[in-house]
C-alpha cells in the first residue's frame, strides 16, 4: 500500500518531507494551492511518482491558483454554469488530460463536481459532461496511463446499502477506468472517527471496488488510513492540516470575508498510540508519565518538541514533518499478507490502549480528542470485517 502526500497550503513541507526525509511514495498535487507555472517547474522525478487532482469541485469558483489553469471550467468566463459545461466539456477534457500527460503524472485523474446535497440526476450529468468526454479523448489518443475516476462518497451513501450499491454499480460500468480516487466526505466533529458502522461500511466499499479489479486510492485520510489498510487499498494519504486529512468543500470556496475561526491547537502525532496528542499535555506527561519515549517516536524533529511551549503553533512544520515520517514508517511496516496485517494491527491497538491506561493511571485524564477511545471502535470494526471476509 502506497502513501501519498495530500498537498495543500504549505505544500513545500510535503515536498521537503518526500524528498529529504523519504516520507511517502508521491504527492497528490492541489492546483488551488500551486500555480500552473510552479507546478510545471517541479522536478520530473517528483511528478512521475505523483498524481494531479484537477479539483473541478466548485466549477464556477477559480479560487486561489485554480485561476492559472486554462482547463479549469471557471476560467472560461465569469459566471460559468452547467450550460457552458455542455458547450466546453470536450475542450476541457482534452486540455486537462493533455496537461496531465505533458507533466508526466503517474495517473490521469478524471475530476468530480461537488454539490451539497447531490441533486437529482447528478450521476447522469457527471457521466455525460465530465466522464464521457474524458474517456472518449483518452481512447482516441490511445493514452496508456491508468485513468482514476474521482468519486466523492457522502456519509449517507456509505451508510445506506441501496445507495452504496447504486454507487458501486455506477462506478463499475466504466470499463476504461483503472481505479478510483476515493474521497469519503463526512461531518464527524471528533478528531478521530468513532462510528463503527461508518468505518465498517467504508471497508466494505473499498473491498467491493477491489473485487472489481479497480485500484483504490483514498484521499484525505487521517489516522484511520491504518484501519482502511485491512481492506487493502492501493494508497492512502497524509496531510499537513486538518482540512487535508478530512475532505471539506470549504477549501474550494472563495469567501468574501475570512470568517473568524478559533485556531486549531497544535498536536503531536504518536504512532505508538495512533493518536494526535494536544501539545499542551506534553508538560503534564513529562511531569507525571515521564517515559516520553514510550509515546513519541524518535525523528529528527522530536527534540524541538521540548522547546518552550510559547513557541508552538499548529502551523509549525516540525509537527507535520514528524507525523509524515512516523506515519510513513507505520505504513511501510504493514505486513503484505492481509491476515497478518489484521492480526498485527489488533495487537498494536491493544498495546496502545495499555499505554493509554498507564497514562490515565499516572494521573492524566486525556480528553476525548487525545485519548484512545477511537481504538475500541477500530478493534470492533476489524473484528466485524474479519467475520465478513470469513463469510464471503
Amino acid at each position, binding site marked *: 500500500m502506497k502513501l501519498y502526500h495530500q498537498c495543500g497550503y504549505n505544500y513545500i513541507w510535503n515536498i521537503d518531507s518526500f524528498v529529504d526525509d523519504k516520507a511517502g511514495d508521491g504527492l497528490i498535487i492541489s492546483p488551488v494551492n500551486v500555480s500552473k507555472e510552479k507546478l510545471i517547474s517541479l522536478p520530473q522525478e517528483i511528478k512521475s511518482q505523483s498524481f494531479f487532482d484537477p479539483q473541478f469541485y466548485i466549477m464556477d469558483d477559480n479560487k486561489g491558483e485554480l485561476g492559472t489553469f486554462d482547463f479549469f471550467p471557471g476560467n472560461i468566463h465569469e459566471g460559468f454554469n452547467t450550460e457552458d459545461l455542455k458547450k466546453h466539456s470536450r475542450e476541457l477534457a482534452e486540455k486537462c488530460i493533455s496537461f496531465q500527460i505533458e507533466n508526466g503524472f503517474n495517473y490521469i485523474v478524471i475530476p468530480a463536481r461537488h454539490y451539497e446535497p447531490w441533486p437529482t440526476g447528478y450521476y447522469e450529468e457527471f457521466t455525460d459532461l465530465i466522464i464521457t468526454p474524458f474517456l472518449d479523448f483518452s481512447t482516441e489518443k490511445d493514452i496508456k496511463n491508468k485513468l482514476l475516476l474521482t468519486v466523492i462518497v457522502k456519509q449517507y451513501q456509505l451508510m445506506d446499502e441501496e445507495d452504496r450499491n447504486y454507487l458501486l454499480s455506477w462506478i463499475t460500468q466504466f470499463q476504461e477506468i483503472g481505479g478510483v480516487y476515493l474521497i469519503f466526505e463526512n461531518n464527524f466533529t471528533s478528531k478521530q472517527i468513532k462510528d463503527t458502522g461508518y468505518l465498517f461500511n467504508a471497508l466494505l466499499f473499498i473491498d467491493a471496488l477491489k473485487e472489481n479489479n479497480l485500484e483504490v486510492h483514498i484521499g484525505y485520510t487521517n489516522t484511520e488510513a491504518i484501519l482502511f489498510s485491512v481492506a487493502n487499498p492501493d494508497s492512502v494519504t497524509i496531510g499537513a492540516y486538518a482540512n487535508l486529512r478530512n475532505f471539506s468543500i470549504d477549501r474550494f470556496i472563495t469567501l468574501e470575508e475570512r470568517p473568524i475561526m478559533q485556531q486549531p491547537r497544535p498536536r503531536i502525532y504518536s504512532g505508538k498510540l495512533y493518536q494526535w496528542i*494536544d501539545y*499542551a499535555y506534553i*508538560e*503534564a506527561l513529562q*511531569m507525571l508519565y515521564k517515559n516520553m519515549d514510550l509515546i513519541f517516536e524518535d525523528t529528527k524533529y522530536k527534540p524541538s518538541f521540548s522547546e518552550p511551549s*510559547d513557541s508552538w503553533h499548529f502551523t509549525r512544520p516540525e509537527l507535520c514533518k514528524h507525523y509524515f515520517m512516523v506515519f510513513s514508517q507505520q505504513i511501510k511496516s504493514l505486513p503484505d499478507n492481509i491476515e497478518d496485517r489484521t492480526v498485527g494491527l489488533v495487537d498494536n491497538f491493544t498495546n496502545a490502549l495499555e499505554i493509554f491506561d498507564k497514562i490515565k493511571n499516572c*494521573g492524566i*485524564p486525556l*480528553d476525548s480528542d487525545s485519548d484512545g477511545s477511537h481504538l475500541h471502535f477500530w478493534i470492533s470494526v476489524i473484528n466485524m470485517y474479519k467475520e465478513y471476509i470469513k463469510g464471503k
Partner: protein
Amino acid sequence: MKFNSEEELVLHFKNYFYKRINKDFIYLEEVKGLFGIPDGVLIEKNENNICIISIEFKLNNWKRAIQQAFKYKSFSTHSFVIFDGYYSKSILKNIEDFKQFNIGLGFFYKGQGFNIVYFPKFERPFSEHYVNKMLNILGENIESNNVITRDKVSIVNSEDIFFQRYIQNNYTV
C-alpha cells in the same frame, strides 16, 4: 431543587460568593487563551504570593468535567469542579476519580450554599508558559499600579489558603 442550566449555577455561585468576597481575591470569568476555558478563576494574592484556583461548573457530566479541570492544572495551583448539589449522590460515587487526578470536588446547592467534599493537594502548575499567560491576563484585569508579573510573585505552596479556610468556615450543608 436543581438548577435549570449551567449558566444559572454559575450565576448563583457568583452572587453567593461576591457577597462574601475579600479584597485579596480576584475572580475572573471564562478565561480564554489558556489550555481549556475555565468558567471561573479565583486568584488569592498578597504582595509576593499568588494562588490560582480554577473552577469548572457542571450540572452532572463528571467525566468530561475531570478532563476539563485537569487542563486548568497547567496554570493553576488548584483545580475544582463544582456541581449542582442536586446530583451529589451519583457524583459522590466517583469521588475516587477526583482524588486520583487531584481535582477538587464541590457541590453548590440551589438556595442553600455549597460545600467542598475533596480539597486537592497543592501542585505546581504544569506549564510555566500558561502560568505566565495567566498572569498577563490577570495584569490586564486589575489596576495598572498593581500589576502582577511573574518575576514579582511566586506560586504559593501552602494548604493554608483563604479559599480553603473560607470554605471550611462556611459550611451550610
